């Protein structure tokens, strides 16, 4: 948890650095005002997923008449980073057995990208790579050389996408009128809990004009939260409680059906 907070702060700082470095020259021309519909998502026992609304406005300096286009907006939602072990199966004596395993660090547990048009048309590949825009441009931490790593990295992206945890421009960013934009990101029921970050990027003619970020917290709450905390904070007590519950349930069942 402390790690996650640390990383959040770090990535916020990085973002600020990016914005101050590359935007100084163009700050006069335009800026970005953004927000999200909710900064706290509670995963309760009846949680079935939710839609997160991300919206904002592009402010255009009225002196700059020649700028007719609003620009392009990219919206990214990143989940807390985690360590992942990827295992590859091979056929051994007729059955499929896990053989090779690679460990990756700094794997976002959730990643969603939305944009008003395909990102490849918005900015140059090196800019997209630097900002890690899109699941395929994420850089996971690993010690192995690229050619060994690659199929394993693809497996992470493929499986996270299948679990609806990674999405690549599945929802568009809509412009409303001259300055407003909005998009939605769907948060599935199996969403990992932790500290998230929503990032907004404004591009015009391939140039990064502005960036904004907002924190987003996804937390277990209610009974589920209490059970989870209990299980991890006091494992022995939790185990004993589980056994007592089972014994009571069994006794109750026997008592109810005794007349038969």
């Amino acid at each position, binding site marked *: 948890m402390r790690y996650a907070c640390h990383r959040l702060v770090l990535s916020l700082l990085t973002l600020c650095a990016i914005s101050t470095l590359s935007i100084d020259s163009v700050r006069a021309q335009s800026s970005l005002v953004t927000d999200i519909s909710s900064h706290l998502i509670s*995963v*309760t*026992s*009846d*949680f*079935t*997923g939710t839609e997160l609304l991300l919206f904002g406005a592009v402010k255009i300096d009225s002196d700059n008449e020649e700028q007719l286009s609003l620009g392009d907006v990219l919206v990214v939602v990143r989940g807390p980073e*985690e*360590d*992942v*072990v*990827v*295992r*590859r*199966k*091979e056929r051994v004596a*007729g*059955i*499929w*057995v*896990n053989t090779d*395993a690679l*460990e*990756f660090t700094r794997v976002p547990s959730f990643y969603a990208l939305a944009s008003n048009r395909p990102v490849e048309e918005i900015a140059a590949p090196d800019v997209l790579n630097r900002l890690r825009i899109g699941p395929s441009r994420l850089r996971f931490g690993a010690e192995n050389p690229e050619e060994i790593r690659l*199929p*394993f990295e693809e*497996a*992470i992206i*493929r*499986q*996270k996408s299948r679990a609806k945890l990674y999405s690549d421009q599945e929802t568009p960013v809509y412009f409303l009128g001259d300055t407003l934009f909005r998009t939605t990101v769907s948060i599935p*029921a*199996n969403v*990992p809990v932790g500290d998230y970050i929503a990032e907004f990027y404004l591009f015009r003619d391939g140039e990064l004009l502005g960036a904004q970020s907002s924190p987003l917290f996804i937390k*277990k709450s209610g*009974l*589920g*939260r209490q*059970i*989870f905390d209990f*299980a*991890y904070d006091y*494992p*022995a007590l*939790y*185990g*004993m*409680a*589980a*056994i007592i*519950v*089972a*014994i009571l*349930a*069994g*006794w109750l*069942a*026997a008592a109810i*059906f005794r007349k*038969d």
Partner: protein
Amino acid sequence: MTVYLPIAEISVNLFLILGMGGLIGLLSGMFGVGGGFLITPLLIFVGIPPAVAVATVSNQITAASVSGVLAHWKRGNVDFKMGVVLLIGGIIGSVIGIWIFTLLASIGQVDLMISLSYVIFLGTIGGLMFIESINAMIKSRKGSGTRKKLHQHYWIHGLPFKMRFRKSKLYISAIMPLSIGALVGILSAIMGVGGGFVMVPAMIYLLGMPTGVVIGTSLFQIIFVTANVTLLHAISTQTVDVMLALLLMSSSVIGAQIGTRFGTKLRGEQLRGMLALLVIAVCLKLAFDLVITPDDLYTLSDGGN
């Protein structure tokens, strides 16, 4: 309607889980087995992580066994002395089993181990039961009434540390029930089963216990073995999902009562034959999954610790 399972960390359909619990209860009421060997694969099939399925099912079986033992106790069908000896073996076995489970989990072979042990044990026991019930059906049709001895004498009866078990009408070495208990303890930790489907045949055929006290005694020691497994899993892997266990318990209890009524209408060898077919079907499904090429050769799991 869905419900979020806090430890499994997924949302599942409430009625699906209740239905599965009810079905397993029905079968366990009909056949007198805990049903762990069926529900663990079913839970894995609907997306519960295998480690959570195994640990949670052992918690659910504790409840089912308590309920069953109370019924058998009233009829005097529990050999407590035998139960305690089996239990000592069972506790030792479950500690070893948890150790193996944790070791396998760290090298990524736990899923394979669960599947393989299921295929081996379900295949062997299902096959043996099926042959036995077919023989019994043929015999009852012929109507040959040759009476068997109370139990046969093998090399087993020559082992040291003999103990007298009054209720089971046995005077045998304590090594046998101890090692059977240990084997079942290992199985229950690795496979998420109470081990009734191994224990019951072993008590009848290896120990030569009278069938009447076998189920009650087996259930008695399964309570403690599964409680121990639950505790050890809670401490070492944090994979016991109380929410899931409660859902399974509540519906399996009702299913078991209905199943008991069905069971009394069928003949013993027919019941055993049907159970054998069911066991073989689960075994074939799991074996098939091991052999066919998976959709994705790669699997992800939590790293570190």
